[in-house]
C-alpha cells in the first residue's frame, strides 16, 4: 500500500483508516491526525484561501524517509501520510497522518513524531490570501522546538536575531 499521497483532491478519513488496517488482526490501535485550513492566524482574521506549493519528487521522498524513521523508532505496524496541495479554502482538510500498531502508546508517539518532522522538513510552502493581499506564511520556531523533543535538530525557522 502506498505510504505517501500528495494531491489536490480531498480524502475521506474513514476510508483511509479502513484501508490502513484492512485485514490486519494484529492492529489494536489506530491514531490519526487531521490538519485543516483555518480562517485566522494570530491577529490576522479573514483568511479567504490558502495555496500549498511543493517540490514534486522531493516531497514524497522526504516523507517516505520520515516514515522509515518512524518504523525504526516505534513499534508500529503501518503508517500513511496524505497531504493536499494547490488552492484550499478555510475548513478544508490539508493533511492526514495515520498510524496503526498493536497498542496505543506507540501509535500516538509515532503520529506526533511524523507531524513534528513534516512541519519542519517536508518541502511545502503556504501562501494565504487576506483582505490586505496574499502573503507567504512564516515558519515557526515552536515547530523546530517540537522536533527537538525527538532528538532531531530542525534548523528550519530562522532564529530571531538577538
Amino acid at each position: 500500500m502506498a505510504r505517501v499521497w500528495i494531491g489536490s483532491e480531498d480524502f475521506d478519513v474513514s476510508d483511509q483508516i479502513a484501508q490502513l488496517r484492512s485485514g490486519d488482526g494484529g492492529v489494536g490501535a489506530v491514531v490519526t491526525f487531521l490538519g485543516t485550513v483555518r480562517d485566522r492566524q494570530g491577529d490576522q482574521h479573514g483568511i479567504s484561501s490558502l495555496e500549498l506549493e511543493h517540490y514534486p519528487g522531493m516531497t514524497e521522498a522526504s516523507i517516505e524517509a520520515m516514515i522509515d524513521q518512524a518504523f525504526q523508532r516505534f513499534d508500529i505496524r503501518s503508517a500513511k501520510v496524505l497531504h493536499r496541495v494547490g488552492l484550499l479554502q478555510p475548513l478544508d482538510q490539508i493533511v492526514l497522518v495515520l498510524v496503526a500498531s498493536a497498542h496505543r502508546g506507540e501509535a500516538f508517539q509515532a503520529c506526533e513524531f511524523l507531524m513534528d518532522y513534516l512541519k519542519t522538513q517536508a518541502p511545502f510552502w503556504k501562501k494565504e490570501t487576506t483582505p490586505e493581499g496574499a502573503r507567504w506564511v512564516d515558519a515557526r520556531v515552536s515547530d523546530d522546538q517540537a522536533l527537538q523533543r525527538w532528538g532531531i535538530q530542525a534548523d528550519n525557522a530562522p532564529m530571531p536575531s538577538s
Partner: protein
Amino acid sequence: MKIQVRYFASLREVLGAEEWVVLDQGGTVGSLRDHLLSLSDGHGQALARSRAVRYALNQRMCSEDAPLTDGAEVAFFPPVTGG
C-alpha cells in the same frame, strides 16, 4: 560544472522556477549561493545572506557545506511551512 538551480515559493516569484548555471570550478551549495547573489539585483536581494534560505541537493535537504557535483540539482527555498 553545470548545475540545475531550482527556486520555490517567494524565491520562485522573484527569480523564476529554475536556471542553469555553469561554474568554472566546483564548490559547495554555500559558494553557489554566493555566486548566484552576484548575478543580478534581484538575485542579490532574494538570496541575501540576511535572509533565511534552505537548501536541497538532488532532492534531499542539505547544509550549505554540501559539495557540488556536475549535473546536480540544487534547490533554494524559504523555511518550509507544510502540514
